[in-house]
């Protein structure tokens, strides 16, 4: 993958390979890469290897088998869980990105000299323990929670709404809340780089605010949107704590199942196979989302 040696183009220009783009790039990335390689090579290997083995209670059988993948792919429970996880992850990331974008926009365009202050303001809520935030949401969304009490005292509802907590809605709300900062930051970063005169030029050519946003600002901030999407979506698929805490009966997601296999159920191979399957499906979906975003942006212009 990373063999060195002079490249063809370097020969032609007569430059030493040491000075080439390739060498500089490799030199720059190598500390990080070596670090990741040292620490991540084994995990990756383990996941892949385990997924082809079998386990009986405490002992691992090292004969190659595809049985785990058969189970992972055909058992309706895993299929449904995967589907549910993907839907939730998609909804969460979509909602997070859509609702966070204006805030990122606001900070970048109207933040003035206080931009860093704003960024801190956005992330401070995440600095209290995650468990406490979840607990707070339970207090807010609960049967006699802040929301229900509020609504009842204003007379909008008679009896407490029970569909607020312990279902997918609660999972989505809690996740959106905890990932908000992670969506705002990359979008903010890419908005910061946009040359403001480009937006002026778009206005000048007849676009109203919405159109100039769709045709100039959005395409130019796409890298940020994409990274926000991925940062939110991928970990969400792998999250098992939030669903467990606020998801109630619906709270089982694929990650819960994977976690159980690595934990109590003590079936690492099945867990590994489920992980690999999930990984592939999630990557594919992430790719699709990125593609869809790019197509959308292309189509709009």
């Amino acid at each position, binding site marked *: 993958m990373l063999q060195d040696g002079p490249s063809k183009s370097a020969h032609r220009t007569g430059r030493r390979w040491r000075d080439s783009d390739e060498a500089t790039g490799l030199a720059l990335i190598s500390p990080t890469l070596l670090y990741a390689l040292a620490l991540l090579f084994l995990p990756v290997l383990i996941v892949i290897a385990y997924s082809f083995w079998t386990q009986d209670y405490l002992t691992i059988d090292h004969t190659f088998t595809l049985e785990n993948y058969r189970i992972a792919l055909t058992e309706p429970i895993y299929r449904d869980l995967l589907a549910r996880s993907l839907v939730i992850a998609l909804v969460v990331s979509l909602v997070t990105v859509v609702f966070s974008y204006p805030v990122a926009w606001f900070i970048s365009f109207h933040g003035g000299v206080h931009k860093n202050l704003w960024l801190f303001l956005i992330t401070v809520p995440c600095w209290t323990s995650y468990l406490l935030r979840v607990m707070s949401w339970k207090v807010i969304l609960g049967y006699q929670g802040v929301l229900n009490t509020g609504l009842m005292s204003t007379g909008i509802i008679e009896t407490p709404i029970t569909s607020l907590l312990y279902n997918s809605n609660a999972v989505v709300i809690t996740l959106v809340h905890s990932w908000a900062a992670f969506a705002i930051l990359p979008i903010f970063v890419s908005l910061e780089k946009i*040359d403001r*005169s*480009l937006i*002026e*030029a*778009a*206005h*000048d*050519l*007849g*676009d*109203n*605010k919405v*159109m*100039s946003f769709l*045709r*100039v600002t959005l*395409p*130019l901030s796409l890298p940020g949107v994409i990274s926000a999407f991925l940062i939110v979506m991928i970990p969400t698929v792998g999250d098992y704590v939030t669903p467990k805490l606020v998801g109630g009966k619906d709270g089982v997601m694929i990650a819960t199942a994977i976690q159980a296999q690595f934990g109590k159920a003590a079936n690492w191979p099945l867990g590994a196979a489920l992980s690999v399957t999930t990984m592939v499906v999630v990557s594919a979906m992430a790719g699709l989302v990125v593609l869809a975003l790019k197509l959308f942006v292309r189509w709009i*212009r």
Partner: protein
Amino acid sequence: MIEIKAVSRFYGIYKALDSVTLDIAAGEFFSLLGPSGCGKTTLLRSIAGFDTPTSGDIRIDGQSAIGVPPNRRPTNMVFQNYAIFPHLNVAENVAYGLKRLKLDAQDERRRVGDALDQVRLSTLGKRGAHELSGGQRQRVALARALVMRPKVLLLDEPLSALDKKLREEMQVELRSLQKAVGITFVLVTHDQYEALAMSDRIAVMFGGRIAQVATPKEIYQRPLTRAVADFLGGMNFMKARITGETATDLSVETQRFGAVTLTKPPGFTCGTSEATIGIRPERLRVLWDDDTAPHAIEGHVVDRHYFGEITHLIVNVPGLDAPLSVSETNNFGADDIPVGAPIRLAYDPDALVALAD
């Protein structure tokens, strides 16, 4: 078409525009001229709607434009820094504004093609924005505005990155476009020749204020102030003693150009005993060998600058405070006159102008 009324613009305490008042007629080719940093771009941006004046009013087509967003103004602008969309190629950049008009594809393609032809870029339609040279970028910016056929076209130094030949072609193109379609042009330029050659009227600005608004010929031949005269081409200045003064005229006695009567510029401080008068270098003509002229002065060449088409001679005339600058086409051999040679210069007394300070 465009009325600018006492518009001021502060950046903090810095006054970029200082109560500017201007009327630009529909279909007029209007140029803004002035030194770097005098507020030209600021004024243009105020007209386009990107900048809101701190005070004053801007009316377009009789309606106040304050508060009207740029996209609802009948203006299009060519930005000084081009503002090419980096995510679009050349043709897409040019087609940007058209997309909203929902033309059919063929129509749109034709208009984009025409605009690219006008700026001589028809072969580069598929180039990415970052694969262009400086001049090519500028032409894309120009095409992008031209293709919109706006009522008012605001051009912020649209040709500054082009070589003279191409610039002249573009000037002709712009001029003919304007005549054909009747667009109002407001051109910011730092190139006097461009302004003189293309404009119906020119406004000269200094430090956020308008110094003079007039037709090219008038502003060139009858500049009101020393600064305007100096800014628009060279001018030989000298002091003259005032011998008589009426409401409109000024009789002065000069060191070498005799006694003349000149039009008094508005803004001239009355009651002073001295006036500044000036004569353009090209209004001084070298007298060869036996040539004679009714009005002539003598001196000798102290320096010489070659400019291809013309040569500038710096001539020391005894009795004058400063050497005279003379511009002469190179048809006789002005470029060969040796430094130090004696020289005789003919002039027309009508070429002298009195200037306010």
